[in-house]
């Protein structure tokens, strides 16, 4: 997998769910790396995705664009992207643009899995 010093991506598959951990900086330079990674998962129909943001230090609108570019196809296929453990700094960028209207932002993996198991899709409350 293509990695960058500025962004590290790790994926663990468990019980049909992909847990992606992203670490570092998600900007216009590194966003295409994550985009390609998610695209590969979607192409092999691995569409139940949880992204762990705890080690992500920075996000710009290019990073937000990665999630916008895949979410429609993933949901049409019956999957979803759920986001967990966002730091306050990264959350404030999502919140500034109203992204919690579209995505489930959860505290941890268990809550994200609960939403998957109960078919709860879309913005957090």
């Amino acid at each position, binding site marked *: 997998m293509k990695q960058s010093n*500025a962004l590290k991506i790790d994926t663990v598959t468990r019980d049909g769910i992909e847990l992606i951990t992203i670490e570092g*900086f998600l*900007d*216009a*330079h590194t966003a295409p790396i994550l985009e390609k990674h998610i695209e590969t998962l979607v192409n092999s129909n691995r569409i139940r995705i949880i992204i762990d943001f705890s080690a992500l230090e*920075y996000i*710009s*609108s*290019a990073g*937000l*664009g990665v999630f*916008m*570019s895949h*979410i*429609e196809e993933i949901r049409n296929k019956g999957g979803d992207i759920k986001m967990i453990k966002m730091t306050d*700094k990264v959350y*404030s*960028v999502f919140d*500034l*643009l*109203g992204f919690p*209207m*579209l995505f489930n932002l959860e505290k941890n993996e268990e809550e994200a899995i609960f939403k998957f198991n109960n078919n709860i899709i879309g913005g957090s409350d």
Partner: protein
Amino acid sequence: MKKKRYSNLITTLSVAVINKQINHIATLIASGDYKELIKIRKFISEYAEKSGLDLKKIDELVLAVDEACSNLIHYSIEFDNKRTIRIDLEKTSDEFVVNIEDDGQPFNPNSVKSPDMKKYFKEYRRGGLGIHIIKNLTDELIYIPGTKSKKRNLLKLSKKY
């Protein structure tokens, strides 16, 4: 009589300009490559912190400058890494100012309307949020397009202390 009034006005304006003392802090020249963004962010964050801007405002300003430079690298200097963006930092009594200059196609960010985010999500749109972010996270945005004699465009972003 009329002349006198004008001259008083000019004196008043001059005093106002002089009172707003501008101190130049630092300059960074970056090339037209997204790889430069990390360097630009470090530059802004380091000097903004030294100048006493609080951490939340630094994060906001860093993001606004990143969005502005990403747009310039993409649309204005079109990934030409032989061309440059020049960033000058200034401090006044109440503001930290970032002046960003490029020699690409002029584009006035003030001409862009804010997106309707409900519609944006409903239609699963993508991109076009950078300018919206810049406007939301800065206290002042001034754009001066280049002219025949002075080719470089100037984008001035300010954050109040």
